[in-house]
Structure formats: structure tokens, C-alpha cells
């Protein structure tokens, strides 16, 4: 069981900044995210695109914003459970909560902050009738460990960066790699497209376009895919089929936690502290709704800040505390580091 002060569901910009504000109050945080990397939408959808409305940054790439946040929170040593979806929540008698993930990892905390954005990023599944039957039996939507494919016959479909990049990477590991895409054109970084072309020319990978996978073959485990090209269907034998059509966010299990939901978002008390209808559970960032809500990063930062103050009072109802400026109080990390403003120079002029 992982124990912490504030359990944050969602490691997008809002969840990450929560760690900093909580750290100033000496509260420890642990984050859960369905994605294998932190950053939420900024990492998954637009890491290389600029943002122009972060206060004091005339322009910053979404990926750099995430890197900066990670650096800013480093002294507070947050814990991460990545690649797992928060699935169930259980309220204990002492007022704390246990959150269990899709992989069974259990976390306990007196405060839960849901910073789940538009929802947990789930793979977009191609519309092939038999696909669900083979999930876990040769069909994977996310590559977690490339070694898993060593000496295996792999078919990948998709036309974007991840399809290209994984084809290139697995070409050294798998017995064979076949890439199937609906068009001859791929959307990826120029060097990825060129590398894939070179691997195709040297026969290290096979690329079948314009084509589509229309059916899957096999008993329990997948044994082949049926590829349709110019109205001709052929079966290609394989051990694994990896459709890479990107991820789309789904609110998912959180919708069944007894929280008040409106417009696919969690209703919160915005006049006070962004608490939900369940005391001790807060919702901040894109995942919440209240009159006048705007889904912007800067709003998520603000909500996280107020929420942490309220969480502190919930955890330490009898302790007095007043907010201190970081310039005045400095930043004292849990790792023993301390940042503080240089002292003024006081020296006599004689």
C-alpha cells in the first residue's frame, strides 16, 4: 500500500503543480496516471506546439512547460504510479480513502485530488469485430516493453509518429515487422519517414499501403490479420497486432465514484476550495465544472493552489498556518535542498 498526504489522480499540468503548492505546506503527494509519462494533454496531444497564455511566458512549448513543472516539483519528491488507471475508491472510517488502479496497486491518503483533465487517455480501437476477443491475446494498443516482441512476428497499423517510430524500433527486435496504413503518406517527423523508407528498401520491414486490416484470425491467441488492399484480401501470419491510432480521453471509472457529474465533468464548490460533493475529494483543472469554468492551464494552477490550503486544514484541523511568499520563506525540499532569496547586503560606508 502506497501512503501519502494528497493522492493526485492525473499527472497533467494541474496535478503536477499541486505537488509544488502542497510541498510548500509540507504535504507529500503521489500521482497516478494512465499514461506512461507525466504531462497530460501537453505531453500526449501537443508536446511540440507553443502555448502563448502562460503568465510571464510569452511563448513556451507544451513539452517544455511539463519539463519545467517536473523540475519545479523535484525537491518535493512526488511518487508516481504511471501507466495505470485509477479504478475504484473506498472511503475508510478514519476519513481517508483507498484508491486502487487497473493493475491492483493500492494507494491510501486522507485527501484525494482528481486532476483527471478530459479523462484518462485510452487507446482508440479500430472497428474490427473480433478485436476485443484478442485483447491480451496478441492485440496490444500500447507498447510497454519492447522486449516482449523479441523474435515475434508483429503487425502494426496506423499512419502517425508512434506507428512509424515503433516500426523502426521493433525492426531490430522482432522477427518481422509489417506496417499497414490506409494511405501511402505518413504523418511523422521527416527523419522517421525517411528511416522507415530505408528499412523498407532494405527489406527489414514490410509496408503495405493503401490497405486496411479488416479481420483477425486465430483460436485463443491471434495467428494472423486479414489485410484488404485494392479490394483483395490476404492473410498475413503474426503473433502480435498493434493498432496505433492515438489515444482519446474518457472520464471512465471516476464517473461511478458517486461524485456529482455535469457535462462530463465533476461539479465542485468554486466559491471555496474546489471540493466535490464528497468531503475530502477535490476536483481541479479541466476535470471540474462550475459556473464560468474555463479549461485553461492557468485556471488549473489557481485551483490547485486554493485546494492545497483547504487540504491542509482538513489534514491538520487544529494547526494554525498563514500563507508565506516563496521569496520570503524560500523553498525547503523534502530532499534536504533549500532555495532562498539572497540576504540583503548591509555594510557601512565610511
Amino acid at each position, binding site marked *: 500500500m502506497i501512503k501519502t498526504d494528497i493522492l493526485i489522480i492525473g499527472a497533467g499540468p494541474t496535478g503536477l503543480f499541486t505537488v509544488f503548492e502542497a510541498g510548500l505546506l509540507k504535504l507529500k503527494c503521489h500521482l497516478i496516471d494512465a499514461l506512461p509519462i507525466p504531462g497530460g494533454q501537453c505531453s500526449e496531444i501537443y508536446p511540440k*506546439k507553443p502555448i502563448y497564455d502562460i503568465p510571464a511566458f510569452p511563448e513556451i512549448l507544451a513539452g517544455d512547460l511539463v519539463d519545467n513543472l517536473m523540475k519545479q516539483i523535484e525537491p518535493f519528491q512526488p511518487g508516481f504510479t504511471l501507466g495505470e488507471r485509477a479504478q475504484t475508491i473506498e472511503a475508510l472510517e478514519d476519513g481517508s480513502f483507498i484508491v486502487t488502479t487497473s493493475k491492483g496497486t493500492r494507494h491510501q491518503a486522507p485527501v484525494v485530488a482528481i486532476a483527471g483533465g478530459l479523462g484518462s487517455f485510452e487507446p482508440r480501437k479500430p*472497428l474490427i469485430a473480433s478485436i476485443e476477443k484478442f485483447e491480451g491475446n496478441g492485440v496490444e494498443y500500447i507498447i510497454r516493453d519492447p522486449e516482449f516482441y523479441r523474435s515475434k512476428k508483429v503487425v502494426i497499423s*496506423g*499512419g502517425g509518429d508512434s506507428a512509424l517510430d515503433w516500426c523502426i524500433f521493433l525492426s531490430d527486435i522482432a522477427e518481422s515487422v509489417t506496417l499497414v496504413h490506409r494511405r501511402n*503518406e505518413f504523418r511523422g517527423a521527416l527523419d522517421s519517414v525517411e528511416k522507415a523508407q530505408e528499412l523498407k528498401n532494405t527489406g527489414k520491414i514490410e509496408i503495405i499501403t493503401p490497405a486496411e486490416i479488416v479481420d483477425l484470425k486465430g483460436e485463443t491467441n491471434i495467428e494472423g490479420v486479414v489485410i484488404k488492399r485494392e479490394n483483395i484480401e490476404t492473410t498475413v501470419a503474426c503473433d502480435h497486432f498493434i493498432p496505433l491510432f492515438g489515444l482519446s480521453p474518457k472520464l471512465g471509472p471516476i464517473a461511478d465514484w458517486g461524485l456529482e457529474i455535469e457535462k462530463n465533468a465533476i461539479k465542485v464548490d468554486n466559491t471555496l476550495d474546489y471540493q466535490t460533493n464528497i468531503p475530502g475529494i477535490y476536483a481541479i483543472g479541466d476535470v471540474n465544472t462550475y459556473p464560468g469554468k474555463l479549461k485553461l492551464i492557468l485556471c488549473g494552477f489557481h485551483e490547485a493552489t486554493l485546494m492545497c490550503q483547504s487540504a491542509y486544514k482538513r489534514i491538520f484541523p487544529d494547526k494554525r498556518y498563514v500563507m508565506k511568499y516563496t521569496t520570503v520563506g524560500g523553498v525547503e525540499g523534502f530532499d534536504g535542498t533549500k532555495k532562498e532569496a539572497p540576504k540583503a547586503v548591509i555594510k557601512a560606508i565610511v
Partner: protein
Amino acid sequence: MIDITITIIDRQGVSHEINAPTDMNMNLMEVVKSYELAPEGTIGVCGGMAMCASCQCYVESGHQLPVISDDEEAMLSEAFNVKTTSRLGCQIQMNPEMDGLKVELAPEC
């Protein structure tokens, strides 16, 4: 300010005739969002960058639409439920020529 009238058939098959402003730099996806014709979070996921296909629609009227860009074409080639009339709503800008446009929203996926 010039408003145009367009018809949007939502994912439940209900037809809505609505007014859309042409002077607010809005695209079709944003018009659908502003009238809440698709649940929050199921349309415009990428904010209108031709990167998610959540705004896919089928164009039913014979309007002269903007030429499909490489980005839109690439995204549609990775989308599901694509038909020959498919377009990404976020790539269709509201202007006076779009008056009378009729589209149906593609299923959520």
C-alpha cells in the same frame, strides 16, 4: 455582424437549424460546441488542430468547402467511420459562403 444559418444533425439523429456568426473567427466544431450539440469532452478534443478527429462530420449539402489540407487528409486517414463526405468540422471556417450548410456529426469514438 452577419449571421448564417446552418443545419447540424447531432449524433442522436436530431436536426438543429442554428445561426452561426461569421465575424468571430469560428469554425464548425466551435459552433457545435457553443450550441452544446455534442457532450462536452466528445468534440474538439485537440482544440481544432486536425489532430483528433472528434469533430468529424459528413457534409450533406453541396457547398464549395475549403480544400482539404495535408493535415486534415492525414487525420481522416486514421479516423474511423470515414465516408467520402467526411470532413473535420474544425477545418471548416464560418463565412458567408457557408450559409445553408448541412452536416451530420460522425459517431463518437
